[in-house]
Structure formats: structure tokens, C-alpha cells
């Protein structure tokens, strides 16, 4: 399972970086989104991978950490997803504004 996740993160991050370096604003925004997917999966994996383990204590008393997943990275990922989503939306607005003002979708605002 680890290898699948690792390859997944790698593909996301690799494609994201490639797209980020492209000259069109639409490619840049898709690249940024892919990078944020990779980052979110990465944060999630830093809580160690466990299958079928809830991130909460099963009942009263001191629980056994071996039977539960780490809740902190899951909380962090939720925050990161929300923030990443908001930033993508904001950048999308700017992208449209730039397209309208400069008449091109090149990241430098002019074709060359």
C-alpha cells in the first residue's frame, strides 16, 4: 500500500511541477492544484498508514494507540484542503482578470 501511495504522490507532484513551469495561466493553476493534492496526501501519510483504524478512542479509559489512526494529520489535511481550495478560487479570479486586461493568457502578460 505504501508504494502505491508513494507513486501516487510522486506522479501528482511531478505533473504539478511540470505544469507549473508552463507559460499558460491555465496550466499553472492546474499545476498548483495537482501539487496541493500531492501535499495533502503527503500530510495524510505522515500519520502512518493504517487500514480500518478509526482516529478516535474506542471507549472510556486509556486507549491502545496501536488500534487507532493518528487524528492530527487528518485534521491538518482538512485545514489544508480548505485553504488550498480558497487559494485556487482566488487565483482563478486573478487569471480571468489578467486575461481581460492584457488580452493574453501568458503568465508574463505578453506573448514572446
Amino acid at each position, binding site marked *: 500500500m505504501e508504494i502505491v501511495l508513494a507513486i501516487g504522490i510522486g506522479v501528482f507532484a511531478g505533473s504539478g511541477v511540470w505544469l507549473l513551469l508552463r507559460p499558460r495561466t491555465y496550466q499553472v493553476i492546474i499545476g498548483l492544484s495537482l501539487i496541493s493534492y500531492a501535499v495533502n496526501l503527503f500530510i495524510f501519510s505522515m500519520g502512518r498508514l493504517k487500514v480500518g483504524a478509526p482516529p478516535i478512542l474506542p471507549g472510556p479509559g486509556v486507549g491502545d494507540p496501536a488500534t487507532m489512526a493518528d487524528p492530527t494529520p487528518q485534521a*491538518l489535511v482538512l485545514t489544508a484542503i480548505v485553504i488550498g481550495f480558497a487559494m485556487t478560487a482566488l*487565483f482563478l479570479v*486573478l487569471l480571468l482578470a489578467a486575461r481581460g486586461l492584457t488580452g493574453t493568457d501568458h503568465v*508574463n502578460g505578453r506573448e514572446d
Partner: protein
Amino acid sequence: MVRSLADHLVIVPILLPLVVGAAMLLFDERRRRLKMTLSLATVTALLVIAVTLLIRAATIDTDGDATVIVYPLGNWPAPFGIVLVVDRLSALMLVLTSVLGLSSLLYALARWHKAGPRFHTLFLLLLTGLNGAFLTGDLFNLFVFFEVLLAASYGLVLHGSGTARVKAGLHYIPVNLVASSLFLIGVAIIYGVTGTLNMADLARLVPSLNIDERALFETGAAILGIAFLIKAGMWPLCFWLPTTYAAACAPIAAMFAIMTKVGIYVILRLFLLCFGGEAGNSAGFGADWLFFGGMATIAFGGIGVLASQSMLRLAGYSVLVSSGTILAAIGTTNSAVISGALFYLITSTLSISAFFLLIELIERGRDAGADVLAVTMEAYGDGESDEEEDDDEGEVGVAIPATIALLGGAFVACTALLAGLPPLSGFVGKVAMLSALINEAGSISIANWVLITLLMFTGFATLIAMTRTGIRTLWMPGEGAIPRVRAVEAAPVGALLALCMLLTVFGGPAMRYMDATAQMLYWPQEYARDILGIAPAGTVPLRPTTGTGGKP
């Protein structure tokens, strides 16, 4: 331990602008007077609170330690819950933020706040983010406040709209989004290795990491460091900075003078906390990168200052020089140099902010080509300098006769501050750093000599560049109309410069404060002990507050 009302003062710098900023969204854009009054009152209150916190942080605690005010949000004990921390450094940064906030806001009230929608809300949210970033004691919480301040800054960069701003934003925003991704990766690795996000707890855990864990931890810290260095503007991560700052409108650029300092603040805090003198085998990790990277930034900034054709870009490169100087000073890991750098941080931020405001005042009523002429005429001789121009139609009648003299005086003060010339506080900060570098135990290393030379060189370069633009813009007869300056616009510039003068006059007490701050940063156990030993209201302390050594 029941918390008094005064203890809750710690969270007010975050809550107050957040609540007021959000509430202002409910009012119509046309109710300008109400919005002006509300935001002015908020920012003034922030300044008062910040000064109160500074005074509290500067007084010595009853147990003989320096005061560290810890405020557990949600009342959970430190390593589990998120804490806000006020110590000397964060209190100082809070005061600096609110001073810049007040002066920029006053300036903006003259005309800039009408240039686009929701200026006041964005401005207050920027202050929320800045205050939060300076106050928090938790890495992930730091990320959240970074995003708050960045989101507000994206809006503010575009304030007033126009092609130049949108183009600059198109570079500024992706760069910072990538930096935020790196920030998250770094935080995730550090959490994966140590299992904690509390900065004080991290400092406690670092010396006990084994070799494998240390390698991973240092990787995470390096990635995190890159994210902050992008924000601080270290070469080669700084190419977005001068363009963005030059494109932003004057009060926003003046406020952005502190944005690079947020990156520097975090590096200062985390680097000395995790890799300071007590970090065992990890001690000093990354110091060389900061030192040499800082020097490269100073050199790049110095050359940029000399080559700038417009005053705004000149100011942008001065930001880089200031960042580079502080980064290199942190890289020396010498507490005396760091205390000098702290003093320099305050004066350079104040003077760059004043300079950004001043530029807009001077540039009113001038044609845009004059800046380019200043440099090209220098290069090709001034054959056409005595050519008279009479295009002062309109705008003349209202002008204050002494305007040019006032602006010129302020310009000279800015020059002296930025170049580090004797009568003003820029000089005090530079001398403090230089004398600490020279007085270092044993012989002075070659690297330190290079740093000393670079500091001298940039001071000289700034002086040349500022004198050149000053002569071309202020001493040229008949070039454009006399700028119309309102008192409310001149006052913030004057106030910022007066603060720099005050820092010179009270250089002794200020330097003592910086020394104590640097000492505290350099030996962080006291900070860590105070944070981890804090008990939530109504319970017994989790860890004993005494023991575990003092200052060596």
C-alpha cells in the same frame, strides 16, 4: 490559577481586527466615514495593546526570569493544545506591525482607500494574519496565519487594479502558493518525525533524535526554511519581490515592508530554537546557508539599488538589502551580532516603510519618464539638463510653498537611514553589527571580513543611488508641478522618521532590550520551560516548572 482579564489581552491583537474586519463586510461600501472611524479605532487600539504587551514582556518576572506570557487556546496544556506566546521578540514585532499599520492606514485614508472595494476589511485581515504569525507557538497554526495574511495581501496587491498590478499579482500569488506547499511538506515531515507541532516541544525533542530521525528532521526543516526564505526574499528566491512591491499602491507597499520580516522572524525563532546552542548534534544546521545566502542577497540588492531606474524599484531592492543583512547576521549564530540585527530590523523596516510613502508624494506631478532620464543622463552626460519645461498647468494654487523643502528633508532622512549614515538609527544598527563582528573572539574570519565589506559596499551603493535620484527629482527646476500633499499624508512619513530619531536618541535602552531579546533567543530553554510548564486554569502543572538547568 484563574486567569485575569489582563491575561486575555494576548489574544486581542488577533480577535479584534478579525471581528471588526468581518463586521465591516456587512456595511455598504458607500459608508466610508463609518469604515474609516472603525478601522482607525481598531488599529489605534492594537497599538496600545501591543505597547502594553511590550512593557509586560520587558519587565522581569517575579521568579527572576524574563517574562514569557503563555496563553493556551482552548485551555489544553502546551504540547497538546495550541498556545499563543508573547516574549520580547514577538511583543517587539507586534509593536512594529501596529506602528506600520497605523501609519499606512492614516496615509491610505487621504485617498487610496477609495481606490477599490473592501480595502478596510482586507487591511484588518492582513493585521490579523501578521499578529497571529508573531504570536503563535504552534507550527501548523503558523501556517494558518500565514495563509490569512497572504490571502489578504493578494487582495491588497491588486487594490486599485490596473494592468501592472494584475501582472505583478500573477507572479506574486503562484510563488507564494508554491511556498505554502513547501511549508506544508516541511511541517508534515517534522510532525512525522517528532510527533509534535509545538515549537517549544520541538526544541526539547531535537537533541534526543537518533541519526535516521535527525536526517529526516533536518530535511523537513530545510524544506520549511526554503518556504520562509521565499517570503523573506533571499537570493535566488527573490525575483518576484521588487516588481510586486513597486506595483502595489503606496500605503500597501509600506505595509508590505513588514511582510518579508515575517519570514525573517520565523527563521530567527525556529532556527535558534531548533538548531541553537543546545541542539546537540544538530546545532548550527543551515547556518552557513543563511550566512552565505544572506551575503548573496546583500550583494544582489546592492547592485539592484544601483541599477534601479525608478524610486519604487530602488525601495524594493532596499528591502532585499535589509533582508539579506539580517539573514547573514542570523547565520553568524553570534548573539551580539543578532542583537544588532534586531535593532537594524526595526529601523530598516520603519525607514523603508516611510520611503515607500514618501516616493508616492514626491512622484505626484512628475512625468514617468523622468526616472529613466535620471540614470541614462548619468551615463551619457547631461546635455539636456538645462532645458526648461513649463507644464505646470493646474494643481499649483493649492500647493504648500514649503512642500518641496519638507519632502526633501524627509528624503535626506530616508537616505541617511537606508545607507546607515551617522546621525540616524540606521547607523546605530549597522555599527552594533559591525562591532560585534569585529570583536568576535579570536581573529576575524575571512567570511566575516567579506560580510563587513558587503555591508559597507551596500551602504555606499544606497548613498550613491539615493543621492542621484534625489538630485534629479528634488533639485530639478521646473520639472512638473509641485506635488499637492495633504497634512494627513505627510504626518505618517514624519511620524515614522521621528520614531527612527527616537530610536537614535534612546539607542541605549533600545539596544539593552535587543541584547536581552537576543540572549533569550539564543538560550531558549527558559522560553521552552515557560511554555511547557504552563498549567491550564484550575489544574496542576503537567511538567515541573523548576529544574532542568538555567543559563550556562
